[in-house]
């Protein structure tokens, strides 16, 4: 039975692995400071735009990006009857429909996550 709890760390770590990438649970990158050699800095001789001009350009770019980018497809609530949790904003890409379709078809009608009969397990503090 030790093998069960013994693998807790590995499992917990695996929660943060996506598609075989490295463990990101402990990979909070520190902000790096780019050390720039002062001698490499070139003096820009051309006239600089003022702040108002920069903001205007930025706004235009944002507008352009919004209108051309396709929206992220969201999960459509297809399997919500398996869960007590109401529909949340979930990217469709993380829902492996080829698996969940089979699972949904085979599960008993009254199946829910969390398990109805042991809901109180989650309220130990209450």
């Amino acid at each position, binding site marked *: *039975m*030790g*093998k*069960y*709890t*013994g*693998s*807790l760390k*590995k*499992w*917990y770590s*695996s*929660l943060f*692995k*996506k*598609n075989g990438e490295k463990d990101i649970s402990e990979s909070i990158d520190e902000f790096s400071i780019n050390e720039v050699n002062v001698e490499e800095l070139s003096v820009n001789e051309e006239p600089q735009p003022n702040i108002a001009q920069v903001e205007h350009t930025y706004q235009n770019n944002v507008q352009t990006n919004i209108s051309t980018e396709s929206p992220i497809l969201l*999960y459509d609530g297809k*399997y919500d009857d398996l*869960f007590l*949790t109401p529909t*949340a904003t*979930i990217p469709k890409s*993380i*829902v*492996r429909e080829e*698996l*969940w379709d*089979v*699972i949904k078809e*085979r*599960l*008993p009608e009254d*199946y829910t*996550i*969390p*398990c109805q*009969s*042991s809901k109180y*397990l*989650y*309220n*130990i*503090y209450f």
Partner: protein
Amino acid sequence: MKILLATYWNVPHLGGVWNYMQQLKKSLEERGHEVDLMGYGEENTIIHKVNTGEKVEKSKLLPFLQAKFPLYMYPNVYTNKLVEFSEFHRYLFELGATYLGLEKYDLIHTQDVISTASIKRVKPQNTPLIATLHGSVAHEIRHQLTTIHQSPTSHMAREYYDELERLGATSSDLTIVANHWLENILRDEFGVPQHQLRVLHYGFDSEEFIKQKSKQSYIDRPINKKVIIYSGRLTELKGVNYLIQALANLKAIRQDWICWIVGTGDKQEELQLLTKSLNLDNDISFLGSRDDVPALLSKADIYVLPSIIENQPLSLIEAQLAGKPSIVSNVGGLPEMIENNVTGLLVEPKDVYGLFISLNRLLTDSLFAKNLGENAKKWGMTHWSFENGIRNLLKAYDEVLLKKKTGDING
């Protein structure tokens, strides 16, 4: 019949549960049944049917499950890491088992409380479910919550596992245990109705063991020294550190022995350091995980099992069938396996001095040791008969099938 043997543990693994599942499969198939073996695998990354190769990857189910099981909705689940681990794994097991398919089985036989509670939720209603419990998960966790899993929220994990034990043990149509120790715990502490419990000895394939015992092992015993052997996982609950301390005492008075420690586990490094610190490097050999345990046992003189918690360990059964005198802790199901001074010696758990005295006694009194070994073998060959075990199990299968059928007829 088409039978599914299922466990929540990782399979294959080196241990009693997997060994039992394999022996049972072989034996059931010899009687014309079809048997599949299912469990977690590859360090909890898949749920699979070992014999068919069918599998579902956990990583494909987990992201959506996490999204639908959010922290803001169920904060207590995330408060204790052990509870979080268990809850996610429990549901993943349910979903994985469902995906792999349960509807084709005439009977499902689970091997632990977690798979039993899980399968109960997803199996077809009329499929009989029998559970064989190989130990008390709740009791083991309680111990670990004071040591390796100690945390400010340990009490939550304790309550959670207590409930899981009760839930699992009451989810089956029949719950089989190997001894009265576990039967008493489940009935008295977890409220499992007596009519749901059955004490059945697993049985052990002694013919196969004898075949294995006669196989050659390249590890030779030393001349003029006796061999003390421990075989099992190197985890805290096995109490191997107490054996090593007892051996340090033993070395102070005699050096006519060596010790083989067979197995691996998360305590291996710590135990090796302890061995070194006690200057026992030349007296204790860590042999690692091995497939020639029966042959090693046949070369040994004394078997020791210093566990803190124990149910019905395969390694002790093997030692008995090998005719070795045993020194084991007086805990769990062990007193039902060893009659003190008749088939072995019982020592209180964590009792270093008791282990030392018992070891010295068996090393000194060879005739007494020989008698204990012979008695143990005689008792073991009858008691652990796999034929008897399987016969009783098949009776239990029939009983539950009939009960289900009658229940169906009665609506």
